[in-house]
């Protein structure tokens, strides 16, 4: 290869020739100059988004393999493949081709399992990444829109997961679709018509697998790709956030350069994620569709569970109280279905718009690139904990039957407990989290002002024992005092001299957020504390020594 690089400039070997070729055609030099040494801050939690991105790449790769063999058709055939227990059974071509991928294509089962595990990890990593962004306040200006883009990605990930789960046309996936059909039918006015359009007539029909297939392999991945592109483009525009620490400010970014350190770390990490998924796929079975059989609307197996990320929706359905339906004249309001849907939608809307709400309360229009430690935003952290608890109760709701059978509890008792928990547990989580955050902040103040405990105990001449506290090094101390401190406001009249309802509301919310705040240690406070300690020390340890010496001298 290198012999073919006899360019007129003859500056180097093949590499220089390639570089020159690319620069003259795509402006590679400028691109490298701009991005080659771009700085990325380092923190383990910044890897969660990477895991999501890499899982998605694994999904694309394994998914392409599966499309070469999968046939999304519901035409019935008689099974004559190698899997004995189903021989002679009538099933759809979709289910048969999924069986054939598993048993008659080398590596087919591996790819199916890889695809399924990668999907589970994709949604999980995206969710954890969202929580990281939430609890560190990374959604603050200028990143509010990117939060919404990320939220859309999370919803698309769930949609991708569910449409894929429904393709093999096995008993489990068919029952999942049956539930979706039931939910759609419950929607006022249009329900029955939308269901009929989705399924191409009556449930289950012969169209749904092919229709979901189109969504699953074309529309949803295309949307995910577009949104990932926007998401990453905005990361480039904003540059990555960094945690507070010495030298880390809102007007700089501290970390390692893209080339070579991040190419090594992140590039290597792609292979680690891919490798781990492959290892799991090779050793841990998932969704053994051959055990479930082809879809039939009559049988169902007890104790079945959806993929984890659908659990909270299924749980919401289960937690609806009995007899919620209201019949008005000829029409039925299926509140037992509408209420859970409403709960899910409201939760998602709250999550999507939270950054705008917090920005309105604080009124802070500055850009924030230094992340909050969760404890330094106690109310936000508590809200996040409450939200997670709410989600977790819904999620547990999807397993009421399994909780009851595994722990020998009454099913009714488990359900009632969860119904109450759905309202009570988030409130408890909020209160506890807020108190813990405030305590941690006070502890930080204590450490800054009085130093860390050394475990060294001395005895004073007058018999008192005291533990020596050691002042923190400046760079460690700075991490504990560098955070944004907000104070509550009161409703003030506007230019017309009127106190608007919105001003009152904002004042109330600001009290809710910042009323019991813990302020960062100021330089004056620190100086005072230090002079006090120096004074005390003169009186204590060194002074004690001197007096003993004097005593001996005398």
């Amino acid at each position: 290869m290198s012999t073919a690089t006899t360019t007129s400039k003859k500056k180097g070997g093949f590499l220089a020739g390639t570089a020159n070729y690319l620069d003259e055609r795509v402006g590679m030099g400028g691109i490298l100059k701009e991005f080659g040494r771009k700085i990325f801050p380092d923190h383990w939690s910044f890897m969660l988004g990477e895991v999501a991105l890499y899982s998605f790449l694994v999904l694309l790769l394994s998914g392409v393999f599966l499309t070469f063999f999968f046939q999304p058709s519901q035409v019935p055939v008689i099974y004559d493949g190698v899997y004995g227990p189903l021989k002679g059974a009538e099933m759809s071509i979709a289910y048969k081709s999924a069986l054939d991928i598993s048993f008659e294509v080398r590596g087919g089962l591996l790819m199916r399992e890889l695809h399924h595990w990668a999907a589970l990890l994709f949604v999980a990593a995206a969710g954890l990444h969202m929580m990281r962004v939430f609890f560190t306040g990374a959604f603050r200006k200028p990143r509010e829109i990117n939060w919404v883009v990320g939220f859309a990605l999370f919803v698309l990930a769930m949609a991708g997961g569910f449409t894929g789960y429904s393709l093999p046309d096995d008993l489990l996936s068919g029952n999942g679709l049956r539930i979706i059909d039931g939910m759609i039918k419950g929607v006022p006015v249009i329900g029955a018509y939308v269901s009929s359009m989705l399924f191409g007539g009556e449930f289950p029909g012969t169209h749904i697998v092919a229709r979901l297939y189109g969504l699953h392999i074309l529309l949803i991945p295309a949307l995910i790709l577009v949104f990932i592109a926007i998401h990453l483009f905005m990361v480039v525009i904003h540059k990555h956030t960094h945690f507070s620490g010495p030298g880390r400010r809102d007007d700089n970014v501290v970390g390692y350069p893209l080339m070579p350190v991040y190419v090594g770390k992140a590039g290597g990490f792609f292979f680690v994620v891919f490798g781990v998924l492959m290892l799991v796929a090779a050793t841990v079975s998932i969704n053994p569709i051959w055990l479930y059989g082809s879809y039939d609307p009559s049988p169902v197996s007890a104790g079945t569970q959806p993929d984890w990320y659908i659990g909270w929706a299924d749980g919401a359905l289960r937690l609806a109280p009995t007899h919620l339906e209201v019949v008005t004249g000829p029409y039925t309001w299926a509140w037992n279905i509408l209420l859970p849907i409403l709960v899910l939608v409201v939760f998602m809307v709250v999550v999507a718009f939270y950054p705008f709400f917090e920005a309105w309360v604080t009124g802070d229009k500055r850009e924030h690139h230094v992340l909050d430690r969760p404890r330094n935003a106690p109310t936000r952290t508590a809200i996040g904990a409450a939200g997670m608890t709410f989600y977790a109760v819904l999620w547990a709701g999807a397993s009421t039957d399994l909780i009851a059978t595994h722990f020998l509890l009454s099913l009714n008792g488990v359900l009632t407990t969860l119904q109450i928990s759905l309202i009570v547990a988030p409130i408890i989580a909020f209160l506890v989290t807020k108190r813990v955050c405030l305590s941690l902040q006070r502890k930080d103040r204590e450490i800054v002002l009085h130093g860390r405990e050394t475990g060294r105990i001395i005895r004073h001449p007058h018999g008192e024992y005291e533990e020596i506290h050691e002042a923190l090094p400046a760079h460690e101390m700075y991490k504990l005092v560098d955070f944004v401190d907000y104070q509550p406001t009161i409703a003030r009249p506007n230019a017309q001299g009127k106190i608007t309802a919105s001003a009152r509301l904002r004042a109330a919310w600001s009290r809710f957020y910042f009323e019991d705040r813990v302020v960062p240690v100021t330089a004056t406070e620190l100086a005072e504390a230090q002079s006090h300690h120096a004074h005390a020390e003169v009186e204590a340890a060194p002074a004690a020594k001197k007096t003993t010496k004097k005593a001996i001298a005398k």
Partner: protein
Amino acid sequence: MATKNESHDAEHEYSAGLAVVPADKIADPGLDEPHRVRMTDKSKKHEKAAANQVATWFLVSIVGSIAAIVFYFVFPISADLNTVRNNTFFVGISIALGMLAIGFGAVHWAKTLMPDAEVAEARHQTRGSEEVRARAIEIVNLANQESGFSRRKLIRRSLYGALALFPLPGLVLFKDMTTDPNPTETLRHTMWSKGVRLTTDPTGTPIKASDITLGSVFHVIPEGLNAREDKLEQKAKAAVLLVRLDPADIKSDKEKAWGYDGIVAYSKICTHVGCPVALYEQHTHHLLCPCHQSTFDITNDCEVIFGPASHPLPQLPITVDAEGYLVAKSDFHKPVGPSFWER
């Protein structure tokens, strides 16, 4: 990005809102925090060892990738399902090794041999400089002037109208996703009608009333279902659960009248979201839906006693024909399955 203005533009002053701008903040000690020097920076020996380790990982990866190809052929698959397991396992773990080893090697390389000192880069406000913003506004105004977008009301409003309507044909095109002109009517009827025999699911064998012992349960489909082309759609509505109760246990007169000598037939499709209500608890006479645990009391006309369902499972009126086989007296009197608006 490439045209970033590096001149001394004053950063824009934003309102801090409720934030307390600290006048008395503890000074930032700056970036030069004490740094632990790595062994690979201090000693040539360690540096060499680390380099060897990285290369070893990459060699291990090569071995893994080759092994995967070899195993693909060494473990062919056949009708014996153990071969599928072996192929999946050996091919899978060797591909995994090939990948993990690249990953471990690259990360080890970055962590031990590449610089580990953090560097800072300036970050500018996302907002454009005043100059850039002025030019942007100028461009928009110019475009507006040249096109007359604000000036020419008629053009603008007619364009809005056109843009609002153009997607509608696209939406209408989706109409034929269903060919059913009246889905709610379809939902009201099932295959059951006067004289249709109750047969077992899935074989389709007719059931004699005398064959049903007290407390036994039959999963039932209408006679002739298996021969129909739309059998899954019909089954999704017509599936029935047949139970023989002691007539003394039955609390509802209507239930007794629609049954036959203690044998009662109820729709198996849950009135919540349509799962099959497949579990019968014999000693309590409860029917339980395994999907969301809606529970129905079969001695009391299948009223809901627990769970998210709201209305009872519809009963199928039955009797026996001249030969003693169970037959339907009519279709269900209410729509089966999940609620819908016009139910």
